[in-house]
């Protein structure tokens, strides 16, 4: 455990040194050094401007996540339980998954305009597919003997779902939810970066246009920390479930 902490600290130190070196190489305006940037960050984060934009991003992300999860789980359940739908739909979902979805963002903008529903839709477009695909796989991978056991014990449909299907699929479904979380956040941020007047993505692009590099990097660092912490939490949950399974 301590060795791991030391390793992580070494990596952080290497990144900071690399940052400082790059700063010396390219100059003050292109990339401010780590120390002034971190001082700026400490001052900037408590301001109302940061709070407002962080809240805007959070709201869009929250709605997008709800849509991603509910739609993704419903699709995955259907395609996992109904074999033919799964076989027909899986390649379609996979090719949609690998499509750069930002190409379709102008369509979303034409439909919704520069509004919250547009950003929510775009975020959900990113998150739905991994949730659906991994849920489908989880259901397909249930060992048939589990279902036989449930039938032997004469469990009702609801009992089977609660006592057999849910615990058997939960770890893999949770992986889907974790990836869905990440991609939904990416979608919302991309939407804000491309066309929006609100949110942290907008703040980054705006800071770049007015050459406020410290602010740009500060926002990026805050998002980075949020993404890493959320991912660590979800990974921890996933590992716990896997160990129990």
């Amino acid at each position: 455990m301590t060795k791991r902490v030391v390793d992580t600290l070494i990596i952080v130190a290497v990144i900071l040194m690399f940052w400082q070196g790059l700063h010396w190489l390219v100059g003050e305006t292109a990339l401010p050094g780590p120390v002034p940037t971190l001082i700026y960050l400490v001052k900037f984060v408590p301001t109302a401007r940061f709070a407002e934009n962080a809240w805007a991003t959070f709201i869009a992300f929250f709605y997008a996540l709800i849509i991603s999860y509910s739609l993704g789980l419903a699709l995955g359940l259907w395609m996992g339980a109904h074999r033919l739908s799964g076989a027909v739909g899986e390649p379609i979902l996979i090719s949609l998954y690998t499509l750069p979805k930002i190409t379709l963002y102008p369509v979303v903008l034409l439909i919704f305009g520069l509004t919250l529903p547009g950003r929510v839709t775009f975020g959900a477009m990113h998150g739905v597919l991994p949730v659906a695909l991994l849920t489908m796989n989880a259901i397909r991978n249930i060992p048939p003997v589990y279902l036989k056991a449930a039938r032997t014990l004469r469990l009702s449909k609801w009992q089977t779902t609660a006592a057999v299907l849910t615990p058997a699929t939960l770890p893999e479904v949770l992986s889907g939810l974790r990836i869905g979380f990440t991609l939904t956040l990416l979608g919302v941020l991309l939407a804000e970066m491309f066309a929006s007047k609100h949110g942290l993505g907008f703040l980054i692009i705006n800071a770049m246009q007015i050459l406020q590099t410290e602010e740009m990097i500060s926002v990026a660092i805050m998002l980075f920390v949020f993404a890493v912490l959320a991912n660590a939490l979800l990974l921890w949950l996933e590992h716990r479930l896997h160990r129990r399974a």
Partner: protein
Amino acid sequence: MSRVGWIRLAVITIAVGALELACRTGLIDHRVVIPPSEMATALVRLLISGQVNDQIARTFGIVIAAVAIAVVLGFALGLVIHAVPRLRQALEPFFATYYAVPIFIFYPVMIAIFGLSAAPIVLMGVANAIVAMIIATLTGLDRVPRVLTKVGRVHRMGAFSTALRLKLPAAAPHLFTGVKLAVSYGFIAVIASEFILAPAGLGRVISDAYTDFNNPRMYALMLLLVIVATVVNMLLHVFDQRWAERRGIGRP
């Protein structure tokens, strides 16, 4: 084609047909979505006119460069990291969280450093693709059966020929998965970067067409990207299947 394949084709045809019908009957406003048939004719006309061919070439050139760098460098880094267990242990949590971070938030930083050129776009492509390749290389090398190294020793093969003739073929399927991911991640990163901010390229042209309300051009190029992404994916999938089959037959 199998029954499932036919059904899939029917589903897609019905979906496109429904969109066409909805656009033609005015259910969907022409200013929002144009009928798929018009998208296709606009694309053919645009390609023949050659107005954006250099932009298309530029974007795909950048994608190819980024993916090539990511695959070669990712494989090399994977070899090094695999050889030093301590380094690998230290980097493991880094790899586990890498794709959780929306790396596009660093694209403006890249622009600030390198200026508005092709360089930051290539870098974003490489950054998005390379870690998938490193992880695939590590998994591939992990899965090389120990017996193969012993066979190499029995035959008195050197480290290099063991790597080339035994380890590489044994790890190949995993490496191919890495290449597959690198292609799609690199493609996504390049297009997205061009959309956000770029001096030229396909993403920029689409985003300009959107700003100019030039729907035929916008939808034509979207169609092009969808076609290219689908075809490339299908090709990689076919390769993957062939490979799996051949190994299946070759196995005793």
